[in-house]
C-alpha cells in the first residue's frame, strides 16, 4: 500500500514538473498594489499545493476542536456522575 502511494506521489510530481515545463510562458498577475509576471505552470502548481494545505489545516483544526469538546463533555459527565452518587 505504501509503495503504491509512493508511486502515485512520484507520478504526480513528474506530471507537475512536466506541466511546469510545458507551460513556461509568463503571465501577468495584478495584485492591486503590484503587478507580477510569473510562469503559468508554476503558479498553477503553487496554488494547487496551497489549496491542498489549507484543506488539510481546516480538517486538522476541526478534529482537534471536536476532541477538546468531547473531553470537556466526558469530564463534565464524570463530575456530574460522582456528584449524583
Amino acid at each position: 500500500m505504501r509503495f503504491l502511494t509512493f508511486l502515485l506521489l512520484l507520478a504526480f510530481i513528474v506530471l507537475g514538473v512536466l506541466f511546469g515545463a510545458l507551460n513556461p510562458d509568463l503571465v501577468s498577475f495584478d495584485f492591486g498594489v503590484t503587478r507580477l509576471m510569473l510562469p503559468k505552470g508554476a503558479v498553477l502548481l503553487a496554488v494547487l499545493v496551497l489549496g491542498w494545505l489549507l484543506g488539510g489545516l481546516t480538517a486538522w483544526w476541526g478534529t482537534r476542536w471536536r476532541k477538546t469538546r468531547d473531553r470537556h463533555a466526558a469530564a463534565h459527565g464524570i463530575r456530574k456522575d460522582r456528584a449524583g452518587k
Partner: protein
Amino acid sequence: MNPVYLMGALIPLAFLSGWWVARRRGTRRSGAERHALSSDYFRGLNYLLNEEQDKAIEVFLRLAEYNRDTVETHLALGNLFRRRGEVDRAIRVHQHLVSRPNLSDDMKTVALLELGEDYMRAGLLDRAETLFADLAAMNAHAPSALRHLIAIYQHERDWHQAIEQARRLEKMSGESQGHDIAHYYCELAEQARQHGARGDASHFLSQAFEHDRNCTRAYMIAGALQVQAGDYKAAIDSYQHAIGTGIAFVPEILPPLLECHVRSGTMDQAERFLRDIIERYHGVSPVLALTRIYRERDGEQAAVAFLTEQLRLRPSVRGLMALIDATMDKVSGDARANFLILRDLTRKLLEGQAMYRCSQCGFGAKAHHWQCPSCKHWATVLPILGVANE
C-alpha cells in the same frame, strides 16, 4: 483557456483533496490513540487490585466515554457498580450493552448473564429467572445460568424446580449435585411431614437417600416420622444412623433420641450409646445428657461426680453452669450468693456466644441452619467446639 479561470476552478478541488487526506489521517491516528488507552485500562485494573474502587470507576468511566465500543470496559464498570451496591447503575450499563445491535453473540450472552446477576442483586428475581432460563435454554454459559437459577429457586423455596435444574447442571457439568439434591428432597419431606402427609414424606426421603446415602438430615427426618407413627425403636435406629453419618450434629440429634429412649423405656441402651459417643465426640452435649441420666437413676451425687470428672477432661462453660445448678441446693449464705453471681455470669457469657459456625464461610449463628444463610452451602453450619460453646 485563461489560466486564472483554471486556477479558480482547481483551488476548491485542491482544498477538498487536502481536507479529505487530513481527515483520513486524523481518523487513523485516533485509532492509534485507542491502543494507547489500554494504559488507562491497566491503570484502572491496578486501582481495582489495590481496592481503590472510586479511582477505578473514574478511570473506567473515562475509558467508556472515549471509546463507546469497548465491551470489556462496560462489563468491568457494571461489575464495579454492582459490587458497590449501585445496582441501578449496573443494570443501566448492562442493558446498554445488551441493546447494542453489533454486539457479538458471545459478548451478548456474557452481558445477559451479568444483567441477570444485577437483577438478582436488586431482588428482581422474576426478571433474573427469565433471563437465566433463556440462557440455559440457549446453552449459552449454561452451567453459570443454571447455578443462578438454582439459587433463585432455593430463595423462593421452589424445591421441585431446584431439583430439576440441579439435575440438568449435573448432566451438563459432570459435577455431582447429589448432596444438594438430597437436601432439597429433605426440605420437601419436612414440609410433607409438617402437613401430616407421611406417605409423601417417606417418598421424598427415599429420593434423598437415593442421591446421598449418608444424608444425616434425611435420617433425622425419618426418625421424626417414626416418632409421629409411634415407632420409637425404628426412630432410635434412625437417630443413631444420623449420628453415625454426621457426628458433628450430635447436639441436634441427642434431644429427640433421648426422648425416644425415655418413651420406649430403654435408658440403659441410651447410657451405653452415650458412653460410646463421648469417646468419639468432644463436645459437652453427650456429657450433659449422661449427667441427667445419672441424676435420675443414681442420684445427684453420682451425677455431680461424673460431671466434675468430665469437666476436668473437657472444660466447658455450659458444663460449669450445669455443675453450679446441681450444687446450688447444697450451699447457703455467702457461698450461695457467690454461686448465683457465677451462674448469672456464665449465662451472660453464653448469651453473647455464637454456638454454630459455617465451615465454608465462617458465618456465626446462635441457632442451627441446614443451609448457611450467608454462603448458601448445605450442612456446613456446625456446632463450635470450644470452652464457651459446644
